[in-house]
């Protein structure tokens, strides 16, 4: 059963190879091939067109177009609650847009059959904002989980792979702890180790830096960049840490109120004439970026209450 899975991956990626011509990146376990692939073409791995999405009537995305370049680190930034996490869930096929297309490696995610969606997800890694470790497994088993589910590797090999990933996030010594015994920042790093366990072609990080001390933050920034370059991954980062993110991102998207406000390389955005962009990147309290969730005028609301009493 499991053996079939791994064969299926190969078959699928082989067909992907033929379909997309020079698309070498879909070959698993061959970082250098993917790197060659990413040098050969600068096309988009993820291509979002005309995306509309809303939660029970409230519009989150209204006609959003986003391109994620292969082999690059692309950062999605925007005020809290604009729908960055939602965007990652849409790319992962966990939510369905009301209209628009989300193409990942050529395939329109909302239209994929269950089987093809699961095949695609094996090639995506996602770091959840909360970490989302499996609470009944210890750190080691958490990182080993995707390996045990999707491969038939002998236990010795799994052990080595897990220890390599844990070493990368600096938590090899914590392998026997249960998730409840981890701090928030440690849990996020374990989750990162788990997300990269299968060497995916694309990684999505939801707030990888929050809750990290300056040292582990520095290590993580370097790790993300290295994973991207050494393994030829494509990376999407959602983050509020403007400086760290800008330092590793090749490209930035700024989202607000259901729209892409601006996009471009970090240097270009820093010099942007847009007041909005400047306010957001420099973290100024006053400006066009709203800090508040949409609400009626504050003074008016206070007056209303006192009037009704």
């Amino acid at each position, binding site marked *: *059963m499991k053996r079939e899975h791994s064969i299926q991956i190969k078959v699928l990626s082989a067909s992907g190879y033929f379909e997309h011509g020079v698309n070498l990146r879909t070959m698993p376990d061959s970082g250098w091939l993917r790197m060659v692939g990413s040098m050969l073409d600068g096309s988009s791995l993820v291509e979002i067109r005309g995306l509309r999405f809303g939660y029970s009537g409230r519009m989150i995305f209204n006609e959003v177009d986003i391109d994620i370049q292969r082999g690059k680190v692309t950062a999605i930034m925007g005020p809290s609650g604009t729908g960055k996490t939602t965007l990652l869930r849409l790319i992962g096929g*966990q939510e369905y847009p009301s209209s628009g297309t989300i193409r990942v490696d050529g395939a329109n995610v909302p239209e994929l059959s269950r089987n093809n969606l699961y095949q695609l*997800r094996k090639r*995506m890694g*996602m770091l*959840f904002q909360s970490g*989302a*470790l*499996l609470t009944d497994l210890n750190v080691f088993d958490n990182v080993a989980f995707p390996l045990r*589910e999707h491969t038939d590797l002998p236990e010795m090999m799994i052990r080595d792979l897990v220890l390599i990933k844990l070493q990368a996030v600096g938590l090899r010594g914590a392998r026997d702890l249960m998730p409840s015994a981890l701090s928030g920042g440690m849990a996020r790093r374990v989750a990162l180790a788990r997300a990269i366990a299968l060497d995916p072609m694309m990684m999505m990080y939801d707030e990888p830096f929050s809750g990290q001390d300056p040292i582990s933050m520095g290590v993580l920034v370097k790790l993300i960049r290295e994973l991207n370059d050494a393994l030829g991954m494509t990376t999407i980062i959602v983050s509020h840490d403007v400086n760290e993110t800008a330092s590793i991102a090749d490209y930035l998207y700024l989202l607000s109120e259901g729209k892409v406000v601006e996009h471009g390389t970090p240097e270009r955005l820093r010099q942007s004439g847009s007041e909005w962009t400047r306010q957001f990147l420099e973290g100024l309290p006053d400006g066009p970026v709203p800090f508040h969730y949409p609400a009626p005028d504050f003074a008016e609301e206070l007056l209303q209450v006192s009037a009704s009493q």
Partner: protein
Amino acid sequence: MITQLQHLGAWALKRFERLGRSHLFLFHVSAGLGELLTRPGLVIQQIFAIGVLSLPIILVAGLFVGMVLALQLYNTMVNFGAEQSLGPVVALSLVRELGPVVTALLFAGRAGSALAAEIGLMKATEQLSSMEMMAVDPMRRIIAPRLVGGALSLPLLAAMFSAIGVSGGFMVATGLLGVDSNAYWSQMQANVDLFDDIANGVIKSIVFGVVVTWIAVFEGYDAAPTSEGVARATTRTVVNGSLAVLGLDFILTALMFGDNG
């Protein structure tokens, strides 16, 4: 008046929606059952968590129900000089009704609520979501083994409940009430039928096992991803599970024992 009608309509729609969702859910889970054959370990783990851990309460309850039953029935039957029939009456009550039903009610409270809470929490903490993103289907990896584990555990628990209940009745009848021990067993054997009584009781407990576990895993999976949602899911599991057991028991009894003595 109009708004009340609207409320009623909305309420009814919501009921039907849940009913439909729960059946679709069962359908999706069933699709993953075949895969379990290749991974029996997952089911074994669940039989441990669901069945073995429910064992103490089931055994203690079974023993006491059997003893009380013998005591109560004896007091009535001795008035008619029918105390020799104590064995069959105790056995029939246990095998046909009390075994399957009381076990299922205890099961809903002990194992069902634990299942709903566990799955609800996994949902609230995004564990199910993260599994999906790791291309592991929670329906197959989490829900299906629990459904099978529960459905297998309950019939075994119910059989143990009845068996220990009959033995408890025997202890009270012969030790305390002075019923002849040969009469207790031989009358029982003469009047309890393997198919009409025992097999039907086992069928009941299989049905209860599937339904109670189904309700538990569905409520957990369908819970709002908050601590309040998880609390509601566990309460609902116990309430709906118990009501379903009692309602189904009536229907099954009418079907099985309705047309013959």
